[in-house]
């Protein structure tokens, strides 16, 4: 392997990137802007949450908890009934966002040994809002629970959550892992595609292919600098999410970075393939949008849960790399799980990376047919 050639080529790539200050600045700031925009867009609507309370046997405990919701600035109790019958019409009309349903004898259970149960039913027709509502309501309940526990000890309230119209959502923080996938896709696939198709458009690629530089060298040289950039972007996105929105990070940062590298390689390979099959920078850019950005946003579960997709569409998502990466990133960040829970998704991503990289190298072999 001619490492001198690769080194020379890498230096050239770094110079291209560093010299184009505008693009570099945009790329470096993008994760920050995206996290902030997504974050605020997600949160701004969730005030004045309308609560419908179902309290079949009012007692001191249910009233205390109800008053917590009433005094909270976020919540607004719109109805209190003793049966669940009234809830369905409220939801259907869109007059309530969440229903808080106590079990009969809630207060007795708080005193007793059994856990006290209540049911939270959330209108999740807008999934993001639904998730936020759920977590706020849980927070109110949890604060009451811990307060009562402090005076009485060992009190347990078990809220059961139903996401109405959209049952699979788990957390307010779902968007950050998806955003990391989006940023990685953008930098890796789009930038690589544009950078390679520029060489193609300008005719420099032909000269490189006639030189002793091999297609594998060219691809490594194109991919490595953007991998570094993608890495910086992941860290920026995480930092912004943590500082601005206090998104938790429960698992291993190193594992997430390693998985990010695999995912970035998948995207980079896609970028190379797109460049190989387009003849202008503009076509490459649009191709990257169509082939990577849109599916990564819409079909990955980042915004729209896969479980709520039509039956014919959800199987299609298995070929979307971002789908697997988002499962991994959510697992690591939000659940704090390690590789023993995520090996299946990791293997899928790794196989995708290897296959696509091999295809990418092949696509740049001079046409021998």
């Amino acid at each position: 392997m001619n490492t001198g050639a690769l080194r020379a080529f890498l230096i050239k790539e770094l110079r291209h990137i560093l010299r184009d200050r505008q693009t570099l600045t945009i790329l470096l700031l993008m994760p920050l802007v995206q996290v902030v925009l997504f974050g605020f867009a997600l949160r701004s609507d969730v005030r004045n949450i309308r609560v419908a309370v179902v309290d079949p046997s009012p007692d001191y405990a249910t009233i205390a908890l109800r008053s917590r919701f009433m005094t909270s600035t976020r919540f607004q109790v719109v109805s209190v009934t003793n049966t669940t019958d009234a809830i369905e019409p409220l939801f259907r009309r869109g007059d309530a966002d969440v229903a808080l349903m106590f079990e009969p004898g809630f207060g007795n259970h708080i005193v007793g040994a059994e856990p006290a149960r209540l049911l939270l039913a959330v209108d999740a027709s807008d999934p993001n809002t639904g998730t936020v509502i759920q977590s706020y309501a849980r927070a109110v309940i949890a604060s009451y629970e811990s307060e009562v526990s402090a005076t009485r000890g060992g009190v347990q309230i078990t809220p059961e959550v139903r996401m109405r119209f959209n049952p699979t959502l788990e957390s307010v923080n779902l968007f950050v892992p998806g955003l990391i996938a989006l940023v990685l896709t953008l930098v890796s696939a789009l930038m690589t595609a544009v950078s390679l198709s520029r060489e193609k458009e300008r005719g420099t690629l032909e000269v490189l292919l006639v030189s002793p530089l091999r297609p594998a060298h060219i691809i490594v040289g194109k991919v490595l600098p953007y991998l570094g950039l993608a890495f910086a972007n992941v860290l920026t996105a995480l930092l912004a999410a943590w500082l601005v929105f206090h998104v938790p990070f429960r698992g291993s940062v190193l594992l997430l970075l390693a998985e990010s590298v695999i995912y970035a390689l998948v995207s980079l390979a896609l970028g190379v393939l797109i460049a190989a099959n387009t003849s202008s920078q503009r076509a490459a850019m649009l191709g990257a949008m169509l082939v990577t950005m849109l599916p990564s946003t819409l079909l990955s579960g980042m915004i729209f849960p896969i479980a709520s997709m039509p039956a014919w569409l959800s199987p299609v998502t298995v070929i979307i790399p971002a789908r697997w990466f988002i499962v991994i990133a959510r697992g690591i960040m939000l659940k704090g799980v390690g590789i023993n829970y995520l090996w299946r998704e990791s293997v899928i991503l790794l196989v995708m990376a290897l296959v696509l990289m091999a295809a990418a190298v092949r696509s740049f072999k001079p046409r021998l047919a």
Partner: protein
Amino acid sequence: MTAPAPASATRELAIDAKNLTRRFGTFTAVDHITFNVGAGEVFGFLGANGAGKTTAIKILVGLIAPTEGEARVAGFDVRTQRAQIRRNIGYMSQKFSLYGDLTVRENIQLYGGIYALTDAQIRDRTKVLLDSLGLTASADDLVASLPLGWKQKLALSVALLHEPKIVFLDEPTGGVDPITRRQFWELIYAAAAGGTTVFVTTHYMDEAEYCDRISIMVDGRIAALGTPAELKKQYDATTVDDVFVRLARGAKAAE
């Protein structure tokens, strides 16, 4: 068309093509061409647009494979020994092949590195190259800021940086003013005097007169091949331009 004897029977052949053919579907871009180029020769490869010149060059430099026939470049087979060919040739494509957002010096460093020159070699040759082109003062300017003529001369010098046995120039003087073209040809002669074989395509018939031998391609075939003097005599013409026009008039693919 039969192959004429090489320029000198004792000379080693830089390029030796026999019945070289390339089809794209039903279209035959290069149709059984047979020719050879002696080492150190300046060989002009002429033809109208679409006559198959670029396809032929791409076969010789290993960018596309021939459908039929065979060719050896620097003694290596274009089908099976492409890696060896790449190390022994320089190539300047129709499009400007340097990077505008890199400086003159950085472009030289890049190609020096790609062709595995040592750092010391790159340093020495950069100095010689900049001196001979009069570009020393602009060494750290971006290539994009140079006038077109300078860019083309620089591109040629960079293609010759690793002292290849053969250099392929695909319409290197397109859009360049007459004075720069003249300087460009001085560079070509200097390379040939140093032992490099020059394989050059051009549109400019006056440039054809500068070549040791020329071939004229029409519709994928070599319609004429010889020294400029031989061809003028054979076609009873005063200039290569006349020869070309006479041959190209019967062409199907001529624009």
